[in-house]
């Protein structure tokens, strides 16, 4: 099974938020009451009941005084996923055969360490403190269906397919930068940005926090070799020098 991906093209997005509605509909997520903040961005952030949302950026460029950017925001389905790296509960987070990062609320222990591990501030929690987030409609894509958001998008701003061929197509279509091509081992959600990532509200080079990388590479192996080494050293000492017998102590 080849890795699947979404490619997001903010310049094609008209901000209709059909993807948000389709996602809620497929995942049976209730609507949330929000206050009108005078912007088309709504709700203001991801919530336990909102797996994807359109970020609205109004940022004039030299040629376009009214440049509006609509950026789909959700779990990026990282190849090297910080959430999975730090999660202490086996099976709570897992990779599907399509390369999506799925979750299992039964196995989640609600520690929220994944919040600290995620470079994109994605995981949210339901009322039982269990993780919720976009799972790339893993229940649809396993049946060869398109994720609800991509299916609903009327302009092609969200397209779904084989990661490699999607990337190829997007490059031919002339996008200068493909965000997420190599970051974190390659993201499962790529962005055909035409300008610097920060213009779209994204970090230039997202990364798993250094302390987690250090923990994974050094502290975790040390927990394994440390106890083994201490026990082995004790046994070797016992064999070589033996116990301090009372009559020998002076």
């Amino acid at each position, binding site marked *: 099974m080849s890795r699947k991906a979404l490619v997001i093209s903010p310049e094609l997005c008209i901000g209709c938020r059909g993807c948000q509605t389709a996602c809620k509909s497929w995942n049976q997520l209730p609507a949330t009451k929000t206050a009108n903040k005078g912007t088309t961005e709504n709700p203001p952030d991801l919530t336990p009941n909102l797996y994807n949302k359109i970020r609205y950026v109004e940022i004039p460029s030299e040629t376009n005084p009214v440049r509006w950017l609509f950026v789909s925001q959700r779990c990026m389905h990282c190849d090297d996923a910080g959430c999975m790296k*730090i999660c*202490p*509960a*086996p099976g*709570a987070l897992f990779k599907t055969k399509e390369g999506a990062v799925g979750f299992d609320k039964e*196995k989640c*222990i*609600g*520690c*929220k*360490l994944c*919040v*600290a591990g995620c470079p994109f501030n994605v995981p949210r*929690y339901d009322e039982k*403190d269990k993780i919720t987030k976009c799972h790339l409609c893993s229940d649809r894509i396993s049946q060869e269906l398109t994720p609800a958001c991509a299916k609903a998008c009327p302009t092609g701003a969200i397209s779904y397919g084989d990661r490699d061929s999607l990337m190829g197509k997007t490059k031919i279509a002339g996008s200068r930068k493909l965000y997420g091509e190599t970051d974190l081992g390659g993201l499962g959600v790529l962005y055909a940005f035409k300008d610097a990532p920060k213009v779209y509200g994204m970090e230039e080079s997202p990364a798993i*926090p250094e*302390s*987690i990388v*250090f*923990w994974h590479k050094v*502290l*975790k192996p*040390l*927990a*394994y070799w*440390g*106890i083994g*080494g*201490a*026990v082995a*050293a*004790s046994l070797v*000492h*016992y064999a070589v*020098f033996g*116990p*301090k*017998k*009372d009559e*020998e*102590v*002076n």
Partner: protein
Amino acid sequence: MANMVKKASVFEILNHWITAVSFIILAVTGYGFLFHLEQLNSIFGNFNVMKDWHNWSGVVFTVSLFFTIFNYLPVSLSFGSDDIGWIFKAGGYFSKRAAVPPQDRLNAGQKLFYLLLLIAGIAISASGFVIWLMPGVRKWVLLSHLAHNISFDLLIIAVPLHIYLATLANPGTFRIMVYGTVPIEWAKKRHAKWVQKMGF
């Protein structure tokens, strides 16, 4: 028995075993989280229950760690030239003939072990409570996750050495944490300064 001297109080012994048992539960469940040991489900049922065991054993561990202060901190802080001498001779553990300087109620190695246990214990407890009670506060959780694991590595190396030294390596020591007493002659050889202070 005659010729015995009391080295540990009932309180000290009880507290020691509370610290030890809670530590072992914490270490076992901690390894479960660290290496996704699903075999532990046969003991705890599932990882949600294991998390409760870990967190509440943490409370027990923290309280018992607090009480160790009264038993060991003053003597551990009284570090003098005889302690330095002990360290230079490596406690006599690598030579049968090495004569080590007279020691207090705790020898220099025991003092150092206690100070490490106290510092790493405070770090692992404080960070554990942050991870538990401030979930999702990214900055604090990241720092605590690091501190929790660094102190865990220190402890998981130091504690097996402590167990070895208190059992196999030094016959006659283990009974202190059962009966609280040792023969005076035994104590004179290992804790001369303390025995002297006791007036024997």
